């Protein structure tokens, strides 16, 4: 199908993008809106590097067609906070030094965000389950787990 203008609600602002409806949301975010926090990792919904929160749920933007987003609010890592004013999850990741290369981290943070919104006091098992689809190759998992627990404490 040809490109058509579509309105997206991203990080609390409305944007119009002109892309073919089947274009994955990830490309609209990165290439049309310049939001490069979400990363391309596999294009197969296998790794979680592209995770954003759509209407409260963590989704894989690499396989989510723009046409399926509609008016639902999209939140990317840029929508949480910035270096000067990080949100509690981002601040917890800094406090725990929960990154090495950091390529997976915005996806981790968005999955953690969706989890904490639904379950403010998750158990270790619940955190591991929520993040099980997010892959990290550097092996920073233990720090990420600590960061999510720390954020749960802060937001409690």
């Amino acid at each position, binding site marked *: 199908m040809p490109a058509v203008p579509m309105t997206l609600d991203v990080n609390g602002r409305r944007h119009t993008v002109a892309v073919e409806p089947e274009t994955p949301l990830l*490309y609209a975010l990165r290439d049309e809106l310049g939001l490069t926090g979400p990363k391309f990792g596999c294009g197969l919904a*296998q*790794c979680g590097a592209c995770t954003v929160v759509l209407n409260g749920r963590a989704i894989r933007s690499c396989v989510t067609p723009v046409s399926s987003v509609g008016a639902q609010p999209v939140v990317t890592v840029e929508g949480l906070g910035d270096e000067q004013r990080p949100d509690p999850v981002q601040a917890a990741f800094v406090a725990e030094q929960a990154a090495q290369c950091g390529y997976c981290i*915005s996806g981790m943070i968005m999955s953690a965000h969706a989890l904490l919104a639904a379950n403010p006091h998750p158990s270790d098992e619940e955190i*591991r389950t929520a993040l099980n689809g997010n892959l990290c190759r550097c*092996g*920073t998992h233990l720090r990420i787990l600590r960061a999510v627990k720390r954020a749960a404490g802060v937001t409690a």
Partner: protein
Amino acid sequence: MSAAVDRATFLRRAGALVVAFSFPGTVPALAQEAAAPNGPATRRKTPSYPNVDQWLAIEPDGAVSVAFGKVELGTGIATAMLQLVADELDVPLAQIRLVDVATTHVPNQGYTSGSTSLSLGAVPIRRAAATARATLLGLAADHFKIDAAALETREGACFVTAEPSRRATYAELIGGHAFGEPIAAHPQMRDPSTYRVVGTSLPRVDIPAKVSGTFTFVQNVRVPGMLHARVVLPPRLGAQLASYDAGSLRGIPEPVRVVRKGNFLAVVAQKEWHAVRAARELKTTWSEGTALPAPERLWETVQQIPGKSRELANTGDVDAVFASAKRTIAARYEWPYQSHGSIGPSCALAEVRDGGVTVWSPVQGVYPLRDAIAAFLELQAEKVQVVYAEGAGCYGHNGADDASTAAALIAHEIGKPVRLQYMRADETGWDPKGPATVHEMKGALDEHGMIAAWEGHIWTPTHSTRPDGHPANTLPGQLTGAPAAPVYYNGGDRSALTNYTLPAQHVSMLYQERAVIRQSSMRGLGGTQNSFANESFVDELAHAASVDPIAFRRRHLTDPRALAVLDVVAPQYKPGRGVAFVHYENTEALVAAVVDVSVDRETGVVRVNQVWIGHDCGLIVNPDGLRNQIEGNVIQATSRALHEAVRFDGSRVASVDWASYPILRFREIPEVSITAIDRPHEKIRGAGEAATTVMAPAIANAIFAQTGKRLRRVPFTPDAVLAALRA
């Protein structure tokens, strides 16, 4: 005018203004292929940079610029480097900045590899900083007309010890001017007792941007007019491209350019998604490929690859000991091909400028890649610039050099800036693999339960096929028929010998110039495979001797540092747990591990519950940074041991994504307890790899301790465990 002022004035006048670091002419006089005893070529030597000004500069505002030729791969070395400079030069951390790594800006320090960035790479900068500090004290002595011994430095200034108000900042003494002097032959290095930031857990400088989504990964670099490219790699190894049908791209809503050179094929579009689609939809015809061995024949095939026989140790009369020994055992160990598994597929951006090419690239060596691209495109080296931009963690020679060369080729062909990102299957299918190896071991015990003789034979290819200026060491070079590169033998012998006291030993290797599939450096290189064989076999000998595995290792070690790392984990050892000890590369970091596992006898699933690590890498620069590296090594190496093997299917690599090449997930992550022994007066030893090498043997030893079954082939998958349990 006093002599003092004269000297300062002289320095200021004589020393050129520091404008910027510039290394236009580093086409290396020293870069040459040298004959070596163990192969036709050694890695090209890097030039030497003998002058202080080549490494650091003090700007007029007091900022200190440091030209570190090693790159931040996500391991934290940039932060650690700042700490080392802060203490050696005695300047506030906030005043130091690392110059962007580019072939025009930093010294050629070769590759960022082998856990050597701080142990070796930082050495010239630390020495330059020590030299600079002495010079600054000399300038201050002249200025205050006092003996330099009566002065101290603090926070970027020199002052008179007895009168701290008599103070001159470094900027006042030399800011904006060159030092104009060589690095001292024996600079007075700071005593570790004066360190203020070395040894502290300074937070990493890159993490705030990484958690904010604003960090500039190479995947995020954009230039005006940039197009998006994707490669179309052969469906089978060795397949030749017969034809492609550009008409198959008619469904894509913009004209797509197809770039072909030999068997190299790529598509270029304005919109990234269109490039992704074009790479998928382009109809191509390829010849048959080269057959790969069936899984059960892999290691037999590995052993048939020709190579050079190399003796690593031959001491004592091994044959005589075996002939008369009371007890001998033998074992064979096998390691599979493994993928680096970078979470972000490799990416690079290339722009044609003034007849040359600039490439933004996440590689471990900007200069060796520059030379390979220059040779590939038949350009002078000065016409190619490589600018480092961080990618996803690489853990060795992944697809980064290939993607960078491909981006350069495409940009050069079409004359426009091109961003090329690999797709998942390009990265997992085509990164040069950590190689498959075979080890055959034999050991003899004496009547006291000590090792009387040790024999090992290793089948391994070289672990290094990095670019080194040779197009044939890149995938685009190979696909376009570049002439073969000389073989550089490296890494196969890493940690091949143990540090155990062995009265007689014979260790040799068949050092192969190639592998079944393209191979290169992956974390730990041969140290990973060799330590799996050695530490499994030591455990087999300990069991045969009926001695507890920690006590058995202790009896064969004399180095107090080796004993110390074993001692810190010893309290966690109990029957049913596994142990391993490695003195990495025999002289680098020392690591001991105790591992607790559960083995599900119904499903064959091995779960690593907890890992205790004793670690000694000399002076610890950043304790939390070190722990981050050790945790990462433990987790990644657990993944490699439990899950990872490249799969073949006909002439195709069949493990191309996270379903076919699974890695460890959150629900499987063990607890990791680390005791890092700080030795402030010892040299820094790298910590980027050592802890990787203990994990596979420690897990195998733990599985044996739980089940009485030895797993001698990685990975320890449920099928492998069930087969062992039923054997």
